[in-house]
């Protein structure tokens, strides 16, 4: 019996060693079941999530598209073959060719270069809206869910008022009030985006508000600020990240919509929605002027949707077992 157990143990050790050779020291460090530090524990957690994320091809495609958007936006001046604003009236409305891959617009500007530079504007809008609206929504939702009672009723009443108005209409109203421009478009979209996050954070908070691990920290004498900041918010985070990523597509469309109506980024900025708007006049004879930025919008929106779906599969506690 003892011998048998020893053989089994030896076999297990051998297996581990072989595994170690294959996975490398880093992977072994990441999958260690007895982490030696906080950093290792969190890195291991992230590694497990990344691995299950990598198994989902659509999610990887989404991550690739979003990654491409970021790279293109960062290196736009080096990637773009022409200036995004340089006009060349002799070359106006040229179809796609070896010289101008995606053709030129009515002022002879290279459409590819404009789309590449437009990636910067799109990314700026998306990031700024997320940075403004997600923290506001999270905080309001967590506070409402944690305190309950009249705090909850007042905060949720305000949220519902914002939620009941259609996004684009409200963004239009704000831009009309604040004036057209990229900055105001970002503010307008952020104002219309936060109520959804507040609702999610509140719903999430309510699921564990009465749970014993929150009661335990309350019993230790923790302040409300500490409980919300350290114990409640991290648990709302993953569902909010998922929702923000899925909302990115909507944000891009709203921004493009504002641009199309001439209320977003102002010419000559190469904003994708504004580019479509200008191509509208030539849509029957010079289809590429409006179509190419349209493709850019669709691809990037799809990328964020795939990424969001993939993140939901790995982050959503309801779809993970026991993590």
């Amino acid at each position, binding site marked *: 019996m003892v011998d048998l157990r020893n053989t089994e143990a030896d076999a297990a050790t051998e297996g581990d060693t072989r595994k170690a050779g294959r996975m490398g020291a880093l992977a072994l460090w990441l999958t260690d079941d007895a982490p030696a530090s906080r950093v290792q524990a969190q890195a291991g957690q992230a590694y497990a999530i990344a691995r299950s994320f990598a198994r989902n091809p659509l999610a990887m495609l989404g991550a690739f598209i979003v990654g491409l958007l970021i790279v293109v936006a960062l290196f736009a001046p080096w990637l773009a073959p022409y200036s995004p604003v340089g006009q060349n009236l002799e070359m106006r409305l040229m179809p796609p060719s070896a010289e101008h891959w995606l053709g030129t617009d009515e002022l002879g500007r290279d459409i590819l270069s404009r789309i590449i530079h437009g990636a910067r504007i799109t990314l700026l809008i998306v990031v700024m809206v997320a940075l403004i609206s997600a923290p506001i929504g999270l905080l309001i939702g967590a506070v409402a869910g944690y305190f309950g009672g009249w705090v909850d009723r007042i905060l949720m009443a305000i949220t519902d008022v914002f939620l009941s108005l259609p996004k684009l209409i409200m963004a239009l109203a704000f831009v009309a009030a604040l004036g057209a421009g990229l900055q105001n478009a970002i503010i307008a979209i952020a104002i219309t985006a936060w109520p959804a996050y507040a609702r999610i954070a509140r719903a999430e908070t309510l699921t564990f508000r009465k749970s014993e691990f929150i009661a335990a920290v309350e*019993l230790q004498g923790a302040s409300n600020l500490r409980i919300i900041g350290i114990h409640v918010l991290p648990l709302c985070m993953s569902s909010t990240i998922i929702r923000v990523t899925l909302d990115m597509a909507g944000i891009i469309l709203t921004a493009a919509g504002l641009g199309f109506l001439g209320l977003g980024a102002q010419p000559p900025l190469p904003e994708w929605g504004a580019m479509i708007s200008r191509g509208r006049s030539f849509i029957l004879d010079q289809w590429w002027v409006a179509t190419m930025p349209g493709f850019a919008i669709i691809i990037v929106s799809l990328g964020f949707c795939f990424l969001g779906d993939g993140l939901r599969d790995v982050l959503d506690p309801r779809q993970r077992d026991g993590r």
Partner: protein
Amino acid sequence: MSCALEIEGLFVRYGRDDVVRDVSFAIETGESYALVGESGSGKSTILRAIVGMARDWRGVIRVDGRDRVNRIDRQFARHCQMVFQDPYASLHPRRTVNDTLTEPLKIHGIGARDARVIAMMEDVGLDPRFRFRFPHQLSGGQRQRVAIARALMLEPKLLLLDEPTSALDVSVQAEILNLLVRLRAERDLTYLLVTHSLPVVGFLCDRLGVLRYGQLVEEAPVERLRAGTFATAYAQELYGASLGGGDRSGATVVAET
């Protein structure tokens, strides 16, 4: 002897009904007291009122000679802590064992955290290798040890135990009960245990109170439980049910230990 916990004329209300009615008892320092009763008899509710989780109560709750009030009370936290029933629900899912155990020290501004955490883990029989694991990487018994360690981090004198073993496997129940007995002896703790398992009471407690429909029907020393000679018919009935087809798991535990 002074009283670790005094309860006088306690009523606790849930919604429109009083689920605890006119309950009075006192626990002396160093004593181990059990509240027993069927489900819904209000025994857990009394604990929840003491720690402030059930806010709608009347009467007097005096902990360490000070009246309990319904707000954040650091001094109360250092005197009285609670171990919850379900170790799967009482640990924050995104925080490592280390985070969970350091939290009370941070709240109270206590230093030498690493040393304290390691010492406490060893004291409750947790391998310090588990220090940076997340709860989902621990077994039920290990989780309950973490919960006990968390409750003891502030070195309280009074520990409230809400069915601390009922969510665990039988063999693990025995380990946790032995741990509780040892910790009480080493740290001069006062226990208030809530349970429906009389064998656990016999193993862990000096005195017990029997609750029925939110009222205390009998208080008795544990000897009377061992002899099976309760004064009231209801307590005797509960005793009979416990010996009968009901919950035998606790009895095995005591037999083994």
